[in-house]
């Protein structure tokens, strides 16, 4: 079975980022970029499925500028077989990304799409579901465990009140939660080997005009500075004084 794994290039989630001085967007100068952590988990899961003999080929795809090649190479180093870069410098919203990814899905005809539940930059949590809807496929979001048997997937997914186990006929879209696995460390030989794996670049043919766009970015209101207390008694008194209890 072929697996398709969409990955997004995002600012390192541990980096400190600020709005641009004019508030028109996010200042990413000098920031380190990574594979969106949830997508790295999706790549790892795909590689494990290949190691188990369930997946035969792993195709990773990213939509964005030429810099996305770095993240695609990293995914190849983790163990993906082939990469596609859909190149565009357009500002993309979720429906536009889902439309471009669905074109790739129709052309590649994977048995399963594994991807992150959300991107840690926009925190949208939309593209996986929109892609599943466009393809008319079932979905399991927030996956914590994935088992494939024949033509179906059994997924343990996180829900508001705990966990749910669902069965999905394939093809389907599965989005990953942090608990699914811990991505492996990639050593140098893997990175070198990945340089010779195929990476195909194609321009995005037609990009939909955005349905949602960012018109301003600002810092959230800051809390007034807090107070250190010296003892439990002082803490309890301060909590009561603030009427919090």
């Amino acid at each position, binding site marked *: 079975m072929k697996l398709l794994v969409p990955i997004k290039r995002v600012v390192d*989630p*541990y980096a400190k*980022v600020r*709005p641009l001085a004019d508030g028109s967007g*996010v200042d990413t100068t000098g920031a380190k970029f990574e594979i969106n952590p949830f997508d790295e988990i999706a790549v790892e899961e795909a590689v494990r499925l290949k190691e188990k003999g369930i997946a035969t080929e792993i195709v990773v795809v990213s939509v964005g500028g030429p810099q996305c090649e770095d993240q695609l190479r990293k995914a190849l180093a983790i163990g993906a077989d082939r990469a596609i870069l859909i190149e565009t410098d357009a500002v993309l919203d*979720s*429906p536009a990304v889902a439309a471009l990814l669905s074109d790739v899905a129709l052309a590649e005809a994977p048995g399963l799409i594994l991807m992150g*539940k959300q991107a*840690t930059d926009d*925190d949208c*949590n*939309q593209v*996986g579901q*929109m*892609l*599943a*809807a*466009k393809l008319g*496929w*079932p*979905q399991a*979001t927030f996956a914590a465990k994935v088992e494939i048997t024949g033509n179906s997937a059994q997924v343990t997914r*996180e*829900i*508001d*009140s*705990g*966990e*749910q*186990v*669902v*069965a*999905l*006929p394939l093809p389907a879209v599965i989005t990953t*939660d*942090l*608990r699914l696995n811990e991505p492996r460390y990639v050593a140098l030989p893997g990175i070198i080997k990945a340089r010779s794996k195929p990476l195909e670049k194609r321009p995005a043919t037609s990009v939909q005009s*955005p*349905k*949602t*766009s*960012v*018109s*301003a*970015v*600002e*810092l*959230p209101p800051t*809390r007034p500075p*807090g*107070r250190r207390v010296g003892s*439990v*008694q002082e*803490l*309890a*008194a301060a*909590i009561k004084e*603030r009427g*919090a*209890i």
Partner: protein
Amino acid sequence: MSKLLVIAFDATDAATSFGFAHALGLPFDVLQLTGLSVPSGAGTVTLANLGSIPPADGLAKALQPLVAGYSHIASPSSMGSKDVLAYLAGLLDTGMVTDAIGVVSPTEFKRPIYAGAMTATIKVNCDPIIITFRPGNFGKDAASANGNESTTSLNVTSQATILSESSKGSARPDLSQAAIVVSGGRPLKDAATFESVIGGFADALGAAVGATRAAVDAGIAANDLQVGQTGKVVAPNLYIAAGISGSTQHMAGIKDSKLIVAINTDTNAPIFDAADLGLVGDLFTVLPELQRELKQ
């Protein structure tokens, strides 16, 4: 005409949507998927009488005819509402705003990005517009009596099948709505210690229990207790963080708390920068003492 449809996934959704509906300033109806209707001040309340929420692919398809004619379709943010409404947005080929925390105008919303490190204003240029919003950021406006009430039968056929669901099995208050939340992190060691130290403190004060991702990953706490960027967002009157370093991802879920209290052995822990009250100390001695003091 501009009109909002609130899709209520559970019994409390409709009541917690009134503040958002008011901020949006449009007339609104409620589609109650499970449970009975609760006073929400809505125009028409339609009961769908589902026993439980079916898989998203089938539910979103069944919702498609019912949402026709509405300019805005919204639900309180939850994993369940994001799962279904984003699929619905895909079917309708429309745009979506996740986790709205403010309404600038009916076509402009504020929402957190980068784990709450920044707030973005999103301009919407599509119809209908699908929204999930955080009720804690909107007023708790009093609800007036309902207008009309009707029922509909939703015929849902999903390709996915639910095989089982873990029951909540907790008598404790709901994390997203509790007045007091006490959360523990990695130093709680194991599940039994977490339950006795954090759980015991919570029960004494009638509080809900929360946890960090590190605690969930280590198997110390259940995953539905996770608070933060990728877990639940809380907005209690009192949030107590015990043995929590204060990562950006954790803070993303607690910013709207009225009073944040931090207990940490490390005087340089980042949580102290965000806390309203901080005590440097060992949670294993501080929490029992604090419990006694607060009960007095």
